[in-house]
């Protein structure tokens, strides 16, 4: 038997990092990889919308009016003669931006709250988690609506409002993980070395609970996008002439008897995106959670 050239190689071959192992499992999951591809492509075309879009998003052609899909307008035009494909590309920017940013806000709040609660333990933990239970009993969507009515349609506010609503489950998940991780020897070692609590949390605990957090993040993004679409459906999302998928669906639903494609195409794209993200999330859960991995 031939020895590897240096001892490091041998180590690398025997002990695979858990992240690489998870990635290997994810790649083998066809549904998850399809989801990943769809999400990547959608994100790419949305980001490059200004260069890809065949028309301007507010360019009207009133003589054309609503026309079915054709060579010039692949997905047809809306009542004002605006190109639907263009509006969907720009709408995708808003929908994905809200999805990512609002989820990021909920991540920040959820991780900070959950990790502090779990790390503190005892009475503090009990109190903080009871508060989360109480907050669960409040219909926050109503308050997001009140906020949007009161302060006007403001994208930044939309991120914060949605993020502030969606952090509860994240906090619970993180707290549960932290409770387990804080018993580990390396955390005790860090305590003995006299590191500050904030440093122990940030450097030693939070990175080790990221697996379930990543999974839940992938599942939060579609929920947030759905909420944004719902708010746009109420007329509280972005303002015309800007577009978002929710707004397009609402406008389409109003005229669907005569021009069904105006509702069907945005609806299909939104559903496909949610599909892709959910499959990706399921795949990530299977890949990152050893319990699921073993049962496969």
């Amino acid at each position: 038997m031939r020895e590897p050239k240096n001892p490091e190689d041998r180590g690398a071959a025997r002990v695979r990092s858990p992240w690489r192992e998870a990635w290997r499992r994810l790649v083998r999951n066809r549904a998850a990889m399809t989801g990943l591809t769809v999400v990547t492509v959608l994100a790419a075309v949305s980001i490059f919308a200004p260069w890809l879009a065949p028309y301007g998003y507010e360019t009207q052609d009133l003589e054309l009016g609503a026309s079915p899909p054709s060579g010039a307008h692949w997905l047809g035009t809306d009542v004002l003669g605006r190109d639907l494909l263009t509006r969907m590309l720009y709408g995708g920017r808003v929908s994905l931006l809200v999805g990512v940013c609002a989820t990021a806000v909920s991540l920040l709040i959820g991780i900070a709250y959950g990790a502090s609660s779990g790390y503190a333990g005892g009475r503090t933990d009990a109190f903080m988690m009871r508060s989360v239970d109480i907050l669960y009993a409040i219909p926050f969507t109503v308050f997001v609506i009140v906020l949007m009515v009161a302060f006007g349609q403001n994208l930044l506010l939309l991120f914060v409002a949605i993020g502030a609503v969606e952090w509860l489950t994240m906090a619970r998940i993180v707290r549960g993980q932290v409770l387990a991780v804080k018993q580990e020897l390396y955390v005790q070692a860090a305590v003995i070395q006299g590191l500050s609590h904030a440093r122990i949390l940030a450097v030693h605990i939070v990175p080790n609970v990221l697996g379930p957090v990543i999974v839940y993040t992938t599942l939060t993004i579609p929920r947030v996008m759905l909420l944004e679409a719902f708010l746009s459906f109420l007329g509280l999302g972005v303002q015309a002439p800007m577009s978002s998928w929710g707004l397009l669906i609402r406008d389409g639903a109003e005229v669907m008897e005569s021009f069904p494609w105006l509702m069907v195409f945005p609806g299909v794209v939104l559903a496909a995106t949610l599909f892709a993200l959910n499959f990706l999330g399921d795949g990530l859960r299977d890949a990152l959670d050893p319990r699921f991995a073993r049962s496969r």
Partner: protein
Amino acid sequence: MIRFLIHRLLQAVPVLLAAVTIAFFLVRLAPGGPFTQERSYSAESIQRLNEHYGLNDPVGVQYLRYIGNLLRGDLGPSFKYSNRTVNEIIAATFPVSLELGCLALCFALCIGLAAGILAALRPNTWQDYAPMALAMTGICIPSFVLGPLLVLLFAIQAGWVNAAGWDTPADRLLPAITLGSAYAAYIARLTRGSMLEVLPADYIRTARATGVPEGRIITCYALKNALIPVVSFLGPATAGIITGSFVVETIFHIPGMGKMFVQAAFNRDYSLILGLVAFYSLLIVVFNFVVDIALAWLDPRLRKATS
């Protein structure tokens, strides 16, 4: 068991109080009063309206008065619908949403449980993939897409039912399916997951070995244990589904409570928002309580663990 139930009931009180308190102050934080949108009102009449509804008092006084009335079950007058109290509005709209919600829940349970059990019995075959793909579709298609699509297909194209309205029994069909499909999808996924965990258990094998019919094994032995996560999910879900959905009620022109939630928010009808939130929180608490009882019945271990 009784101690456990009393304990749970006592826990509900601070939850309700906190929910109402947070709602009270959040709504007050928003700029603009309920009467600022009415252009036709003069400054003097707005002043008098504020005086009449006690909106000029310090917030603390308003809060205490509200809690006091709430304890007597009085949710106060609506600011926007003159001559109607919040209690009357809830009494008029809740039965409609309740009926729709119950129908949707029945639909969700029948479809969801059947699909979940079917998928779990033949894991990783097409009989598993097909219902689960369908469930994913149910989760991913928002109700404001599904509703219009159903209307387009079954009301406008096929002409089998009315596109909107709430008069004949047939009118209930499309709204119930629209509202219930997402719940059906979640129930199907939960059922499949927990059935897969229960089915390999020893007691199932023992039951098979002693010749218990397969149908009885699934319904009485496996399903009873597999239902636990589904029941936990149903608690808050039931409260949500019977308080109505703005989208479904708008699409099908149904005079229910979901619409009121959003209209109250748009109108800044403080008392109506607060009343609805209080009512909703009460329902959440009630259904969580019911779920606790149901879980204790399903799983005797839970009775000991919590008391």
